[in-house]
């Protein structure tokens, strides 16, 4: 409910709050489509970049958050994960996890 009010406020204020909208992207599909470029169509990787399809949501979500906080040192993912809220990362994790 709090979230709904926040969105309504942002809309009325005329702020194109894409961060907030992306967070509301409950299926994670919009952001996940952007991940496919490196991780493969629908998360199926053809090479050494890890595939994401069907992996447990907790594993995917925790991995991305650890990259985001630099707790885990990767290469490019430390820079990319910082572009998203924890909620957005959870949604992306759920999306790929749900692909069987």
């Amino acid at each position: 409910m709090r979230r709904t009010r926040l969105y309504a406020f942002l809309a009325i204020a005329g702020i194109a709050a894409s961060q907030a909208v992306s967070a509301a992207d409950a299926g994670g599909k919009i952001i996940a489509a952007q991940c496919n470029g490196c991780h493969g169509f629908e998360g199926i990787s053809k090479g050494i970049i890890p595939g994401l399809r069907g992996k447990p949501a907790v594993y995917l979500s925790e991995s991305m958050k650890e990259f985001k906080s630099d707790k885990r040192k990767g290469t490019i993912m430390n820079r990319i994960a910082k572009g998203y809220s924890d909620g957005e990362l959870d949604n992306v994790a759920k999306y790929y996890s749900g692909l069987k």
Partner: protein
Amino acid sequence: MNRRRFIKAVGAAGALSGLGLVGCTSAGSKPGSGHVVIIGGGAGGATCAKYIRHLDSGVKVTVVEPKTEFATCFMSNWVIGGIKEQNWITHGYAGWSKKHGINVVHDTAVSIDPVAKVVKTRGGQSIKYDRCVVSPGVDFRYDTIDGYGEAVAESVPHAWHAGPQTALLRKQLESMRNGGLFVIAAPPNPFRCPPGPYERASLVANYFKKHKPRSKVLIMDAKDAFSKQGLFVAGWTTHYGYGTANSMIEWRSKANDGMARAIKAESRTVVTEFGEVKADVLNVIPAQKAGHIAAVAGLTDASGWCPVDPLTWESKVHKGIHVIGDAAIQAPIPKSGYAANSEAKVCAAAIVALLNGRSPDVPSWVNTCYSLVTPDHGLSVAGVYTYTDGKIAEVKGAGGLTPKDGHFSLEASYAESWYQNIIDDMFG
């Protein structure tokens, strides 16, 4: 529910504030149906076609592309440098079109009528559309370098459209004498693949180191700075003696009289404001503009590129026509293959939404771009972008370059894997 309500509200606010968000179906199209004609089957066009079909199999998609095989400009430096063969960067359409139910017309689009909504081809076809996507890549401003032109490029390649030009430059490199000078005339901003000329210099130097060690690469630049400069310079210093008298790579900035004003094709000579440089192999990458059809269709502005609303990538000039990839004004997203792929997905989702009578979702973009200094020394730049105040905004604190102490060898491995996956995302 929350999201839908919010987007509706933003749509109304956007329309009121003149953002021009489109929230209705195009005339004549039924929800869940419609015909999308995509001009150009490269990184942008192929991705857009495939994603539209996956998002809504009721939408018919036709791709107009003259070539029966498509060579990607990204990774073509790997072919020039001898790391990969030409067939590695070349992809056909036959299996792809069948797999995804996409109609491919191997012809050249010569006009777009935005009122009648018809694309005409050189072969005489008239193709009616509900929405048109223009993804023509770049064309060259040959008039900016005296003595250069399309015919001259047959002997002095630009190799900035991959395919025969890539093979030609590779052949010239292989035929060059040991001790020769390979000159790359690099273009002014904005242009396709900003780190491309510098990766090319790197991989040519890598070839020289192994096969023609007395040879040298000279980059003559129309700019005073370039993409990933610090990382390239550090890599060149490590691998090619950059900064020493024996450096295999030299970079001459615009301020240092590096900019090519003219060329003499017969003698492979570059003419600058104050002097001349004679090359053994000359690679001229001219200034660029949106691909030809974009200008013909009146989609470009005075800059030579196409203004769009990034929510849908619909042209700000002609309704019902979307422009994606290098041809679009997409700053702060750079003109890269990944960007075209990223924009194509946003455009595909927006078109499917519009054809189904829904408001488009608020988008999100990513750019990821790898370059090699050597086959085992990779660099990357990344960016995450959101839609803010009707424009594309880079998320602060995210993205950026490989750190100075980065995993260069791992990034080189990921570069190859990146290519395999993005190609599968586009052409698989």
